[in-house]
Each structure stands twice: as C-alpha cells, then as structure tokens.
C-alpha cells in the first residue's frame, strides 16, 4: 500500500454499550471516491448504519413511518463525526467536520456540518472519523485524549445544562494546564429530551443543526464528547510548499469582493432583498413579504444594535454577526443583556416566519435555541405551523407555559415572548403542546390532522428554509429532491434563481440539470470541506479544488473530472442510503400549500407551482442524474 497523505486511513469506532473500541481501516479507494466530510460520511453510514436487510423500497409505509423514525433513536443507529483531507491545513474555512446519522425527524440521511478546532483534534485523536454506536447505561461524557483511547465517564452533573454551560464545564474539568484545551461537542436539554430536531453544539453555540443529530446523541445518553489529539499525529501533506502558497493566495482572495457581503453584513443582509423579491416566507408561508422586514433587516440591525463579527476556526472571512441586546443593568426596566449569533436562517425562522418584527425578541429566541440545542429553522417552522393551526381552531385552546411553569398565553403570530416560552416548552418537552411540537411539524400534523398536513411546511419531515419556493422555481426542485429533506445547503440551486440564467418565476426543462449540477457542487464543497461562502473566491472551483486535493494527497492523476465524478457518486450514495431506508417517489415533493396556493402578495403575487410542473422538473432531474424514471438509483453504487 502506498503512503497515505492528508488522511489517517482509519476510523475509531466506539461502542457505548460495551465500552469497547477499535480502529477500522478505511480503504484508499473509498477515501478517494468520496473525498471526506459528507461524502465519506455517507459511505460510513452505509457501512455502519445500514438497515438489517437490503430493502429496495418496501420498508416504509404510512403505518410504520413512526416506527422507522423511532428506530433512529435506537442504539444501532450510528452517530459519525467525519473530518476531511483539508482539515489540519492552513486553508481558510477548512476546519470543519461533518456529523452523520439517520435522522429521527426524516428517517433518512442526516448530514450536518460545523466549524471548529474540534475537527483538527478529531483527526489527530480518532483518524478520519469517529463512529459512535450503542447506548451508554448512564449519562456519559466521551473523552478521547492524545493517546486515542476513548474513555466513557459519568456526566450526570452536566445533565440539564445549556450547550454553552456544558462546553465550559467540560473544558474546565479536563483542563490539564497545557496550552491546548480539549475541544467539545455537546447537546443541550433538547437533545437530552429527544426533541427530533435537536442539534449538536460546539464552540459556544455553533450548531450542527438540521435533522436532529442531537436527539440521536441524546438517545445514546451521550451528553458531550471532548477531544484533544496529538499534533504529531497530523498526517503528512504531499506537497506542503505548494499548499502553503495556495493557502496564502486563497486567504487573500477570500477578502475580496466575492465575500464582501458576508464579511461586512453577514447573511442577515438577505432579509431586505428577499422581502423585495417576494421570497421571504412569512407567517408560515402564507405570505412572501413581511411588513416588519426593515426593522429586522441586516442593514437596520447593524445601525440599531451592537454588532460584531466572529470567525469560525481557521476562517479569514468571519461572516458571523454577534448581535447584543438588552443591558447589563437588569434593574428597573432594564432587559437582561443577551448576545446571539445571528444569521439569515435563524432570523427568518424566528422573525417573519412566526410574524415577529421585534428584533430583540428574535435575538433572544435565537439565543434560546442555541442554549437548548434546537435547530432554529425547524423550531421556527413547527411553531409557525402551530400558530396557524391554533388560529384555525384545530389545537383547542393551546397554552404556552410561562417561564415559571404557570399556564400562560395563547398562540398568535407576532408574539415574540410566546415564541420564546414555547421554545422552552419544546426543548424540555413540557406540556402537551411542547411535547407535540418536539416531534416536528410532519408528525405533529399527522397527529392533529384536519388538513393541517398541507400547511406543515416540510419536505421528508425537515422544515423548510427561508426561501419561498413558488418564486424560486429551481430551488423548489432542489428542496423537493435533496435526500436530506428541505435543505438549501445541500443544493445551491437558488444561485441560478438569483441570476439572469433562468426566469425564477417560471418552470422549464433546464432545471433538472441545473439542480443536479448545483447539488454536485454542494457535495464537493461539503466533502472537501470548504465553506460555501468561499465558493466565488475560486477562479475555477473544480480545477482549483482538484489541484488542492493533489497537493494534499499526492494523487497526481486526480483531476477536476474525477472530482466531478466523486460529487455525482456522493449524490448516488446518499440516494441509495435513503432507498435502503424505504425512500419512495412520493417522498420527493413539496408541501400542499406550495403546490396548491398561489402567492398572495409581493412582486410575485398570483404565481404558484403546480404538482404537474414540479413533477416535470423532477423527471428532468432524475434523467440528469441517470436514475430510473421512478427516481431510483442502482444500489450497486454502494459497492463502487
């Protein structure tokens, strides 16, 4: 076997039930064909998390959906942390890891990303991946230090703590006086309580948020993992000189015009634009513009609130905006000072989507989600569903418990305080309403019925992000077909809609190819792993990335074409994983509201999207992917 550069070549597998661990080799061909991050993570999911039998479609029926979702919370479902060949290099934005599991919210693939020095420590201590299986008999902390030996210790004293407090407590406990702290990933109360959209947090509130990996971690009774590797374990780089020169140049380009929006205003700048373009989902997607948008716009927040930039580990761009509200003096009428990492998706979900136009209330709600370890998009989505359902009289007289647990307020759009109280109810599964909404909007709507399924704004169970699909037709296709569910990150199809390339309000036969290409592009980004906000800083993404991969791995014959093939292969692998867990053609769709109601307001008022139009785009997409007309991939791809 030739020397391995850029990779460790193995995964550490820990069984929390037995406390045993081992190191499993990962074949070089698997590394090369799936790159790392989400690509390699998908391969590992097939290896460690396949269904008991190789089903090809008959696993899922409406009757057993809940059973299959619950099975994701069983010990057999692996929770996998995956690094990439770029982790540990000086390349900007590359200190990222993927979190892979089967989602208790969707029943399908859950592939999250987060940024942290934890990525570097994981690679040093655990190899290319850390695979966690089984279930501890007690609340546990998994600690892996420089010797690479996993230690499972009791963590009862951490239970109930917020994500931030958990991280601080673990760092303090494991502080050995050296200059290198342990890096921590943990869950908050939401993960402990198996909220189906609980996130895994790191670095003071950054979240691997979507699809509920925090619930899977909670189901394993694992409160936190803490890792500190040995720097001498860093794998060698094939051409360190060339890589250093490239890294310097990329850092310089990362500070150019292509990232100016992210550096200066952050993604919250989307609010005013999306509002103007009629693509800002408001009040549970009943509207596509929000009358309070200006007050919560990025431009206004920068003027009216204390805002500073923050950087992920090893990032030159620093798109994160930390916004502070309230005062240190909480006496008299002073409101408690709170800071939150604010980005567009959180702002949209806990603002316009629930009709809240008070920026302070939004910021406090975002902070509360981060403390509880809740995905902000799903939290806002399920609350928006609940408010509309309550307004239509289908929830009886729902009461949101106040902070002190006393019966409190009713549910209305625009009530920021009620949203914050409801987040607490959800995070703790408190009361019938909190417990219902902790299931996510699909299961909640199935339980409540009465037509509420059609305004449960989710795909495959995952709540929709802050892009109105009726006025962004290419993205509509991406949201319908992406294996993860309604996710804007695993497809970057909106890029076409926000360009002269297509008519974003109309449907045509080009969208299948555009959506497939954009998904491949995202797969390459997420597997190498680059931050997507760097994407326009490359002169030629595919050529540049292939060159970097050669510098790191030394595989001299790896070129842009092979990277493209790897990206398409990753898309196949994801689809195959879902198929093995019962994916059906009917899972690739959009919510009833999207397909039956034209937009009510904004520049695109009157524009809709019919089932026939969506089906035609989906057929084009399957063709572009080389899948069957029914959207099935040949499961032989798993063996490739």
């Amino acid at each position, binding site marked *: 076997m030739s020397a391995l550069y850029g990779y460790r070549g193995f995964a550490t597998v820990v069984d929390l039930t037995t406390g045993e661990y081992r190191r499993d080799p990962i074949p070089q061909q698997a590394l090369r064909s799936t790159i790392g991050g989400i690509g390699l993570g998908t391969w590992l999911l097939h290896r460690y998390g396949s269904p008991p039998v190789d089903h090809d479609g008959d696993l899922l029926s409406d009757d057993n959906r809940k059973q299959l979702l619950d099975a994701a919370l069983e010990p057999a479902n692996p929770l996998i942390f995956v690094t990439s060949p770029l982790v540990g290099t000086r390349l900007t934005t590359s200190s990222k890891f993927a979190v892979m599991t089967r989602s208790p919210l969707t029943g399908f693939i859950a592939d999250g990303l987060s940024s942290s020095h934890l990525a570097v420590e994981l690679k040093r201590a655990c190899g290319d991946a850390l695979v966690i299986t089984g279930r501890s008999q007690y609340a546990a902390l998994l600690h892996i230090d420089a010797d690479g030996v996993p230690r499972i210790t009791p963590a009862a004293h951490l239970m109930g703590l917020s994500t931030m407090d958990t991280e601080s407590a673990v760092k303090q406990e494991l502080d050995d006086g050296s200059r290198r702290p342990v890096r921590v990933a943990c869950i908050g109360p939401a993960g402990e309580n198996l909220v189906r959209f609980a996130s895994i947090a790191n670095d003071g509130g950054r979240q691997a948020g979507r699809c509920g990996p925090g619930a899977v971690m909670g189901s394993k009774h694992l409160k936190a993992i803490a890792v500190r590797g040995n720097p001498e374990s860093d794998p060698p780089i094939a051409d360190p000189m060339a890589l250093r020169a490239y890294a310097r140049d990329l850092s310089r380009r990362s500070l*150019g*015009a*292509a*990232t*100016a*929006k*992210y550096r*200066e*205003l952050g*993604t919250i*700048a*989307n609010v*005013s*634009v999306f509002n*103007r*373009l*009629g693509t800002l989902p408001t009040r549970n997607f009943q509207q596509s513009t929000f009358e309070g948008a200006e007050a919560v716009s*990025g*431009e206004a927040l*920068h003027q009216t609130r204390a805002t500073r930039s923050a950087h992920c580990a090893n990032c030159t761009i620093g798109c994160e905006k930390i916004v502070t509200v309230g005062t240190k003096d909480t006496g008299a009428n002073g409101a408690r000072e709170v800071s939150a990492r604010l*980005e*567009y*998706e959180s702002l949209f979900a806990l603002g316009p989507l629930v009709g809240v136009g008070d920026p302070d209330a939004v910021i406090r709600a975002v902070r509360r989600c981060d403390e509880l370890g809740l995905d902000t998009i799903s939290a806002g989505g399920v609350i928006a569903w609940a408010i509309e359902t309550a307004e239509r009289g289908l929830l009886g007289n729902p009461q949101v418990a106040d902070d002190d647990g006393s019966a409190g307020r009713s549910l209305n759009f625009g009530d920021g305080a009620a949203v914050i109280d409801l987040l607490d109810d959800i995070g703790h599964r408190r009361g019938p309403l909190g417990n219902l909404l902790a299931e996510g909007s699909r299961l909640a709507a199935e339980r409540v019925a009465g037509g509420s399924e059609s305004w449960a704004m989710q795909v495959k169970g995952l709540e929709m992000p*802050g892009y109105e699909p009726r006025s962004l037709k290419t993205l509509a296709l991406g949201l319908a077909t992406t294996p993860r569910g309604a996710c*804007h990150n695993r497809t*970057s199809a*909106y*890029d076409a*809609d*926000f*360009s*002269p390339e297509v*008519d*974003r*309000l109309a449907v045509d036969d080009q969208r299948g190819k555009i959506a497939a290409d954009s998904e491949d592009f995202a797969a390459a980004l997420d597997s190498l792993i680059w931050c*997507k*906000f760097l*994407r*326009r800083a490359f002169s030629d993404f595919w050529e540049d990335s292939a060159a970097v991969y050669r510098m790191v791995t030394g595989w001299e014959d790896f070129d842009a074409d092979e990277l493209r093939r790897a990206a398409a292969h990753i898309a196949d692998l994801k689809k195959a994983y879902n198929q093995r867990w019962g994916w059906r053609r009917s899972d690739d769709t959009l919510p009833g509201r999207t397909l039956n109601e034209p937009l009510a307001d*904004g*520049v*695109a008022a009157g524009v809709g999207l019919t089932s026939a139009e969506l089906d035609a785009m989906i057929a084009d997409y399957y063709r572009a992917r080389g899948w069957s007309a029914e959207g099935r991939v040949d499961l032989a791809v798993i063996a490739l």
Partner: protein
Amino acid sequence: MKSAAPNGVSVVVTVELFGLARVRAGVSSVCLTVDAQTPVTELLGALAQECPDLVGSALCLSDRGTISVADGYALNRNGLAFLSPEIEAPLDWAPGDSLLLLSNQAGG
C-alpha cells in the same frame, strides 16, 4: 435629488439599494429622472453622480469612463428579472420602474 433630465421622454426610475450598497450610500433608494431609452450603464452613471460613495464599492469606473456594477453585485429590474451585468442596449423604462442594486451572493 434628481439628475439632469436627458433628451427625449423622461421617466423617473427609482434605484433601490440593498446591503452594502445601502450602507455605503446612506440611503435606501434614489430617484433618477432619465430618458426612457437609457441604457443601464448610463443609469448607473447618474447613480454614481448622486451617490459618489458607491464608486469603488458597488460601482466601478472603467478605463473608458463608463460605470458598471462592481464584482459581487447584481442588478434586478422591478424585483423580477435579474439583468446581465454586460447589458449595454437601452432598456425601455416606464414610470414607476425600479432598478435594484444588490449583492450577487444569495446564500444564507
């Protein structure tokens, strides 16, 4: 403020500024009186006169002295169609039309 009215039929076009363009200019929109057949580059030239702080950030001055949108920015007409930055032909402007100047990065 309005720019000098050009020849032919005049219309008022509102240039709406978003994101950094709004921050740099210090206003969210500018009304420009222009010829109904004005090419986008000329409209941007009028905008540059009204909001000189945009030159070097959202707008750039070419060697030929014409104004275009800078890297990282996009143009959209009336909140509907995105315009190609290279467009040089005159557009038919109607009263009440808007030109949006915004980031070309939509991700969030």
